[in-house]
């Protein structure tokens, strides 16, 4: 699956589907876990599946189900769900230069998760303008469908799946960091960028270890950005370009 080409011999949506397949390694185990937890919290398989279909935001769905099960006020449940998803606000503007004026794009933003953004941010600039809508639709729909199907499977047969293949749930999620690594590797183009990216990665990793996963993502990105600007302001000019 080489991504350097700017044109595609096959249909763009099919290429999008194919290139989003690595996402499934991360999506399915987490979606199955969500279905299982939702069922244990008293939601029917139908309700759990509808939550995944409509909300489609991993971490906030776990929070939603957990808070509802603990009897939290519903206004607080909605507020916390949206607070976790605030980080999504920077995704669409980053892709906007490569999205045309099609009326479908705003609706397709429903599928703009962390992972789909990472893939699209890397891939859309490489595609011809006419191929982008089809590519994104294929990639986003596959990711969405896998999330919904995984939830349904988890709600109906989650306990059986976990008991049957205990190691699968441990191994497959590594597809996500592996995919992010392959997406980010071309960004290490200078010392300045490398330092900022490493600061973000390490900060997010430490926040997760300390139990602050969701707030850790924007905080880590902000730390990386601060580093990016600080390095520019403090590095003496030597005639070269370190960007």
């Amino acid at each position, binding site marked *: 699956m080489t991504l350097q080409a700017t044109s595609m011999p096959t249909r763009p949506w099919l290429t999008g589907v194919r290139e989003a397949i690595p996402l499934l390694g991360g999506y399915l185990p987490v979606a199955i876990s969500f279905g299982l937890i939702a069922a244990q919290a008293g939601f029917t398989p139908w309700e759990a599946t509808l939550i995944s279909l409509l909300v489609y935001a991993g971490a906030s769905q776990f929070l939603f189900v957990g808070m509802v099960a603990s009897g939290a006020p519903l206004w607080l449940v909605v507020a916390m769900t949206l607070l976790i998803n605030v980080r999504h606000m920077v995704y*669409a503007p980053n892709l906007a230069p490569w999205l045309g004026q099609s009326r479908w794009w705003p609706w397709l933003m429903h599928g703009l998760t962390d992972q789909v953004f990472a893939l699209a941010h890397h891939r859309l600039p490489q595609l011809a303008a006419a191929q982008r809508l089809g590519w994104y639709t294929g990639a986003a729909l596959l990711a969405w469908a896998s999330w919904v199907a995984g939830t349904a499977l988890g709600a109906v047969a989650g306990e059986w799946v976990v008991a049957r293949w205990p190691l699968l749930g441990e191994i497959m999620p590594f597809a996500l960091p592996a995919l992010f690594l392959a997406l980010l590797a071309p960004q290490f183009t200078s010392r300045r960028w490398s330092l900022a990216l490493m600061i973000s990665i390490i900060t997010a990793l430490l926040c997760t270890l300390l139990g602050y996963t969701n707030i850790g993502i924007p905080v880590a990105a902000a730390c990386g950005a601060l580093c990016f600007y600080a390095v520019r302001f403090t590095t003496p000019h030597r005639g070269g370009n370190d960007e």
Partner: protein
Amino acid sequence: MNSALWIAVLASALGTLLLRLVPLLWMRRRLRKLDGEEGVDAMPQWLTILGPLMIAAVLGVSLVPHRLDAIGWLASASGVLVTLGVWYRLRSLGWPVVAGVAAFGAVVILASLWS
């Protein structure tokens, strides 16, 4: 689910969609205003920087293994090294992921056989 819970689900769904959609409409309007500039040049600089850094942050979160013991970290480190090694050779997306997961899985399976 009772009707209040359904309203909470729908409010969360609509709110999440708006968080993803409204910034796109804002950026589209900005791009139209700056008509003639290349798309990337029309973006605020902080936004072009924040995009890759958000991906880096999500990478940092996903790097933490499920099992926080030596085996978990060893498996993650092996997966990272193999992913980067294969990416360096092939400069592609699919095979580095496959190789990284295989390396990660090999360490986990070997450890489970060992214990």
